[in-house]
């Protein structure tokens, strides 16, 4: 399977031009993670005074919300890159260019990484002066958590893009809402043991549950649970393969139906 870095760069350039040309877009990307962090920062401060569990680890809720935003932005970064092509009715030109579908996927993932850094980094930095909490004190495990959640977001973003390609722009809101179906099961703010027993296996089948449990192990016990990291990575490999497979299947289906030429608003 050939992969041309020049074509991938060209696609990234296309999206970077849009970001460069629109400061409101850049601001919007950083705005929601920052607002989210501020709200959860105050919540964390309140619980730290009224809950022994939160008091044991300063900033646990802020860390959780920042990492959740990594996954959310990861998903949105992929889906928005694809939606942008549909909104601008550009998919026809791309489909007859030498750009391979898997190169399009790689460019979407690359743009997702860039968008996520632009979105989450300011919020993470803002938490330091506001709440005296630095997520960077997590050290190397932070890189592992970030990577795992980003990949989970990618898998979801690819699945959403596949659904939009299959069912049209009527399904575009899935980019914002579908990922929230996973939130209650991901154990972002509470341990998985809080969930009813019958729901716990479902949660453990999702990579974020392993990541957030792993984060709590680092914060509360000072240990990096490699077993949780390994299971998150293995599950992510499966979900990413499924997401990419679904997208390529939808792409093939669009070529059978003739949907690539006339998609758009």
């Amino acid at each position: 399977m050939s992969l041309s870095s020049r074509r991938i760069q060209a696609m990234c350039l296309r999206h970077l031009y849009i970001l460069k040309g629109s400061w409101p877009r850049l601001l919007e990307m950083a705005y929601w993670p920052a607002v989210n962090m501020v709200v959860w920062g105050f919540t964390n401060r309140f619980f730290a005074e009224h809950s022994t569990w939160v008091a044991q680890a300063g900033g646990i809720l802020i860390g959780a919300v920042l990492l959740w935003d990594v996954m959310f932005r990861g998903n949105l970064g992929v889906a928005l890159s694809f939606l942008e092509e549909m909104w601008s009715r550009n998919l026809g030109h791309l489909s007859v260019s030498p750009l391979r579908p898997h190169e399009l996927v790689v460019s979407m993932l690359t743009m997702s990484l860039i968008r996520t850094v632009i979105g989450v980094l300011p919020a993470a930095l803002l938490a330091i002066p506001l709440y005296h909490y630095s997520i960077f004190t997590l050290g190397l495990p932070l890189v592992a958590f970030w990577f795992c959640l980003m990949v989970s977001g990618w898998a979801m973003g690819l699945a959403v893009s596949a659904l939009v390609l299959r069912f049209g722009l009527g399904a575009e809101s899935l980019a914002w809402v579908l990922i929230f179906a996973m939130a209650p099961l991901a154990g972002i703010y509470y341990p998985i043991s809080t969930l009813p027993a019958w729901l716990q296996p479902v949660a453990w089948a999702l990579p974020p549950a392993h990541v957030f449990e792993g984060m709590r192990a680092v914060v509360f016990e000072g240990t990096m649970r490699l077993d949780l990291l390994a299971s998150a990575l293995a599950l992510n490999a499966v979900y990413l393969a499924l997401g990419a497979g679904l997208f390529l299947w939808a792409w093939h289906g669009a070529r059978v139906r003739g949907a690539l030429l006339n998609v758009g608003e």
Partner: protein
Amino acid sequence: MSAIEVQALFKSFGPIKAVDGLDFSIKAGSTTALLGGNGAGKTTTLSMLLGLLLPTSGSITVLGEDMVRHRYRVLPRMNFSSPYVDLPHRLSVRQNLKVYGGLYGVERLADRIAELTAELELGEFIDRPAGKLSAGQKTRVALAKALLNKPDLLLLDEPTASLDPDTADWVRGWFHSYQRATGATIVLASHNMTEVERMCDHVLMMKQGRIVDQGSPADLIARFGRASMEEVFLDIARDRRRGEER
């Protein structure tokens, strides 16, 4: 030598047969028109030639490659223009050309863009967003994108639709000089019979997914005993016999 060979080509969408057994070849270096009324199967055929749409059955060979199996071998040597497929509106003309130059692997891209800017007179609006151009300017930009990689095969879907006669004439002239200079093959779908008479060496007349007649515009006009391609078109569209009065 053929630039395109199509054999026993079928495309169905559920119970609807959009293309119903096409067999044709297109000579390298020629300009060929796909003509027919709405729903005749022109756009479906063009989409399959581009590899954008998979045939239900049949074979398509473009520039010596099987278009279903090896389209990526030949796509760098082709290009496409249609007024119905936009370039990203928020990107400037120059940015669009840089992106597509990268996708097509154009060498010395800056020089190529400068060349096209001069030839197609894009200088006045090269840094303006593509979405803020007039129809004529958009057509010139689409033309620049279509010629970026100096294609051996150019597929055009209604290349002068919604253009004023002056701009349309300029566009037709441009395709003609590009073809003379490069020996490229051009295939176009059009409803404009004057355009077809002026530009094309060969015409494939389509109806209900089939080729019902073909030949050069002059041959078809002579065989149907008519004065223009428009009259030939109407004869075929309305199932009139050759020479029958309107």
